């Protein structure tokens, strides 16, 4: 049903998928975390209100989030080519993945940080903490469990995006599903890829939630 060569390709697909997902998650957090913090801090009720900056960042994030991933990936192909040199393969796919996921991560971070009660922020202000100290020493550590849950959700979203990228030569399990399942209409490889994607999602989700619970010092 599935030839040894195909199994080999599937193995390689798993590795490519993990490579894309992990690299893009890291990349989207490098950009999205500061953006999310900026959105919270510069909000009108934030620790450092800056109306104009907040509005500009908010609009950019919303625009990027409104574009469906596949269309965005095609749209940013010139950027991808300029950075990576090609638009095909898993490394090239990381570029649109980061561009699509960073605004998503920014909103996830924003909502996690907003869960921190105003009381602790006020307490920190009463101690003479600067806005920067409040962000780094109060907001992020206090929101850590929620940020981890957000990361688990984001990573699953990125995995979904990466599978879509298979249709534009993105590599990984998505490409296998497209080549064998869609182009050749073969059911077994299709099922195998789906099962593998489900397993990967389960693993990421479980690790994220367990870690969040373990690190949360509340409700003990």
């Amino acid at each position, binding site marked *: 049903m599935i030839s040894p060569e195909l199994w080999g390709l599937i193995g390689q697909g798993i590795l490519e998928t993990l490579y894309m997902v992990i690299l893009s998650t890291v990349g989207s957090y490098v950009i999205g975390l500061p953006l999310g913090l900026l959105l919270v801090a510069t909000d009108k009720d934030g620790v450092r209100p800056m109306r104009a900056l907040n509005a500009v960042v908010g609009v950019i994030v919303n625009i990027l989030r409104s574009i469906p991933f596949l269309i965005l990936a095609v749209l940013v192909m010139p950027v991808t080519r300029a950075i990576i040199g090609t638009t095909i393969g898993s490394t090239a796919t990381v570029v649109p993945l980061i561009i699509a996921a960073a605004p998503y991560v920014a909103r996830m971070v924003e909502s996690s940080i907003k869960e921190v009660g105003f009381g602790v922020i006020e307490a920190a202000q009463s*101690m003479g903490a600067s806005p920067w100290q409040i962000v780094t020493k109060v907001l992020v550590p206090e929101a850590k469990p929620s940020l981890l849950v957000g990361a688990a959700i984001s990573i699953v979203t990125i995995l979904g995006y990466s599978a879509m990228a298979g249709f534009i030569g993105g590599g990984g399990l998505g490409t296998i599903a497209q080549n064998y399942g869609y182009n050749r209409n073969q059911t077994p490889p299709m099922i195998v890829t789906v099962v593998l994607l489900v397993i990967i999602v389960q693993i990421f989700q479980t690790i994220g939630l367990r870690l969040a619970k373990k690190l949360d*010092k509340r409700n003990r």
Partner: protein
Amino acid sequence: MGQDAIVQIRNLNKTFRGRAGTVVALDDISLDIMRGEIFGIIGLSGAGKSTLVRCINFLEVPTAGTVTVDGEELGKLSKRDLLDARRSMGMIFQQFNLLQQRTALQNICFPLEIAGTPKAEAEKRAEELLGIVGLSDRANAYPSQMSGGQQQRVAIARALATNPKILLCDEATSALDPTTTRSILSLLKEINRKLGITIIVITHEMAVIEEICQRVAIIDASHIAEIGAVDQVFTRPQSTMAKQLIYPDGKQRERLATGKRYCRIVFDGNSSFEPVVSNMVLECKAPVNIMFADTKDMDGKAYGQMILQLPDDERAASRALAYLETQNVHVEEGLSDDFT
């Protein structure tokens, strides 16, 4: 006043601009808080007392007027200097506001971290403070593992970490049960006595003021209704709001029948141990009815008041009043409506 005032508030105004238009939270507040005293600010919810205390450390920036803390006018300070000024004031809250992801010890280290104190030194100081608040054995407990009283003790230790000159308490005992409230109040008293820290207490409970404050300001609808020594305000409240807070629920009104004459006797700390009422009855042969009595022990002296229904007989009533006037008590006479 003046020279020894650690906090001077002058003509303070604070208005908030909201969707429903501007709301005046504080209107022309002026008051002095003396170095080393425990000063109470009492009022009903929404009276503006929480805004007032936040103006003292500039968590709320006043719309007009000045706040001078230890000789520095806060409104004139740069951002940097204001952060430093805040470090000279500790603050505790109704909901404790501890960092949930930090242990008791780490919470107390927090203000020191903010101020840039080396870690080892901060931990040493934090352990010392845990001892002061009686929680040395809970150093590694997280807030969720502690009772409300313990959390507030940690919050007090945290507020004291940077050696502040002033401790601001915003409804610090309002979320606690009566027993815990008493223990927190006695801790505050002890801190005031041992460390000489000026304490400003915001509350809506007269019992808290009575327990620890020397002076009190009564805030009513954004204004100071009355200000003075606690025993004075307690025994002879002048403003409507003070009377309302001291005799809550207007509970006397229902009990006092109209058309009868009453008198209020106020004990001022010297005479309440003498059997004034018994003596009066024996002396004047005038039977009186005690309608209301509330005496309290404050700072080793007794204070309180009693409302007597005077006899219907004019002459007996006059004799009773005349007798009371000769005693060392404050007497007010009137009809039922006068005592509500």
